[in-house]
């Protein structure tokens, strides 16, 4: 009884009683959520264009960040290292298309998924082989200072805000790219129907390379932001797991879904940890994100922005 009260009643009273703490958690959740959205977007792009659930997205984040920081350690300035890293991700896209996708056209989703797991191993191995497994410090000049808002009641950090801003910018750019440019429309066409896209003269190969390149750049940005926060190291590849609940919530193919889903998961898990964590013993964030997504799915199997599925026979 007492336990039930501590999870069903007390947290809400606390939210009421300490609104600034709540606001702070929401803001922190939003800024984290943007970064989740960013990683989730990488998944969505590739899933839309090739029906591939790209498990290697996390490894790509690691690989991109390792490349950048590795180049910088060799004395390159940030801009040069950035250009080279982007070039590396483009090269990766070419290689993936040439040696993987091309041979796996029309395979089932699960097989494609497994292939990306193979890619995951390759990238983790190559990244560490080239640049080592040490933790590396990444300094990109984002100011890192706490600052007060709401009269000192809520504390934020310039780094988090900047990172959220960069994330948001990239997310918006991608959304616009998808909706407004011919390339973006082509990508959406491929997602809807491979055959149809081919028949109107869009070369699948180009699209795959394009989409993997974009996913690679998204991974690079995610890697920079997370890497600047916690150092560039192997754990970066694990943040892919944080994007999965976002994907179920938002839908595998929906760009707005990834954005809104990321924000919901970000805020949800922070608030849950902050108010429910103490009663439940803490560290509930991870499963809470999944449970939230699961509960949501049970009531709305098509995801946040999916259309209602009418089954036909």
């Amino acid at each position: 009884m007492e336990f039930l009260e501590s999870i069903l009643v007390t947290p809400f009273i606390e939210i009421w009683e300490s609104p600034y703490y709540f606001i702070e958690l929401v803001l922190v959740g939003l800024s984290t959520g943007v970064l989740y959205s960013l990683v989730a977007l990488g998944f969505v792009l590739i899933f839309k264009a090739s029906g591939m659930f790209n498990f290697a997205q996390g490894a790509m984040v690691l690989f991109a960040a390792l490349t950048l920081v590795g180049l910088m350690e060799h004395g390159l300035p940030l801009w040069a290292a950035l250009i080279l890293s982007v070039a590396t991700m483009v090269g990766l896209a070419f290689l993936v298309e040439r040696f993987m996708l091309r041979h796996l056209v029309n395979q089932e989703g699960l097989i494609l998924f497994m292939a990306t797991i193979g890619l995951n191993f390759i990238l983790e191995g190559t990244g560490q082989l080239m640049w080592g497994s040490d933790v590396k410090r990444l300094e990109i000049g984002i100011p890192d200072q706490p600052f007060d808002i709401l009269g000192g009641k809520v504390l934020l950090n310039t780094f988090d805000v900047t990172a959220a801003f960069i994330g948001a910018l990239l997310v918006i750019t991608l959304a616009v790219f998808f909706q407004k440019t011919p390339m973006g429309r082509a990508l959406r066409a491929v997602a809807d129907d491979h055959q149809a896209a081919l028949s109107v003269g869009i070369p699948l190969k180009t699209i795959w390379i394009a989409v993997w390149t974009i996913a690679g750049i998204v991974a690079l940005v995610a890697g920079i932001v997370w890497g600047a926060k916690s150092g560039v190291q192997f754990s970066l590849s694990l943040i892919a797991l944080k994007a999965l609940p976002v994907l179920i919530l938002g839908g595998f193919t929906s760009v707005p879904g990834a954005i809104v889903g990321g924000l919901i998961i970000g805020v949800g898990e922070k608030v849950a940890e902050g108010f429910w964590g103490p009663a439940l013993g803490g560290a509930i964030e991870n499963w809470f994100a999944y449970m939230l997504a699961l509960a949501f799915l049970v009531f709305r199997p098509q995801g946040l922005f999916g259309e209602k599925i009418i089954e036909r026979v």
Partner: protein
Amino acid sequence: MKFRKLVLATAATVVGLGTFAAAEIAKADEQFFPMLVYRTGAYAPSGIPVANGFRDYYTLLNKRDGGINGVTVTFEECETQYKTNLGVECYEKLKGNGPTGASLFNPYSTGITYQLIPKASVDKIPILSMGYGRTSAADGRVFEWVFNPPATYWSQASAVIKYFSRRAGGYDKLAGKKIVHLHHNSAYGKEANPTLEVLAKRYGFKLTLVPVDHPGQEQASQWRQIRRIKPDFIFMSGWGVMNQVAIKEAGNIRYPMDQFVGNWWSGSDADVVPAGDGAKGYLSTTFHGAGSDFGVHADIIKHIYGGDAAAAKENKVGEVLYNRGVVNAMFATEAVRTAQAKFGNKSLTGEQVRWGLENLNITQETLDKLGFKGMVSPLKITCEDHETMGPVIIQKWDGAKWSYASEWLTPMRDIVRPLVEADAAAYAKENNITPRNCN
């Protein structure tokens, strides 16, 4: 065609697997030290310096002293990636190597240690888990084969509270203080909790346990919680990326670094360097000195790196966890030396090395002679006490190096030892072990 190639490849694999199982080399007068390392994967930043420390010290013994009393030191690394299943494989692979089998195992992972503890008595190979693993293994009557000097997590926790009390101005000032234990949500991270709870009751401070899930990349909500609690002190049992993020987040909420103390696995160079200037003033416990100014380092740089200090730095010489590897290797080899005094200067079995560990008595003279002067405290293991409750010290990061920031703190034996004995007794009962008599 494709198909035929596959068959050939499979056949080659099978043949290959068969032959290496049989491969075995035997040489006389060698002492084999297995090394379970993790140079890759999520915990590699911590694993690399430790492994280098071991490697360099073993090599140093051979180059400088011609081995241990003339017996060559051999070692082999096996990559565990900090994973239990690979740990088992490495253990089985290495335990029979060398003329007399493995001397002892240093698992460097709580999970693998737990896993090897039951095996140790069966395979007759001791485990030296220096400052980690199962705390109650300190009770040598139950855990004949496991040694965890110089101190356990429980001893450490008591020493940290002692430190907090001194900062607060005495034990009586602890009453009403708020202390947070921020810990990795795993068997390792939770280890100190029971002791801290006992201490909280005794001294009347308010303890809040805040767990962080693996890997610990995301701690925003935990730190907002901490900001709300406004603790007087924070004690952290972190590991891997969790440490770096925690230090960064502490800065984010403007928490004063000098009230934030990590345990000895949360205070290495890899933990503070990525946090940049924000980490200045961060404290952590340790039981040995950091830096490369000790005698042993001079020898290592001279004999192994040919005097090239830069190459040594590249190889982490002098980093906290590097030094830990060196100290650990020293304990291990000194145990062998102790055993040689009884069994002769030849290759020793695990059983003989166990005797050496149990009778290990590292005096200040030995330390001075080996180049560990000022780096680590003397130590004497007994049949009952496999831990020794060696003193713990607080070190401080000034942005470039670690330095001592307190006097040596002796753990509270009166509190910790009964807890150890109770848990050891429970383990003995569950596993049908009759504790031996040490008198």
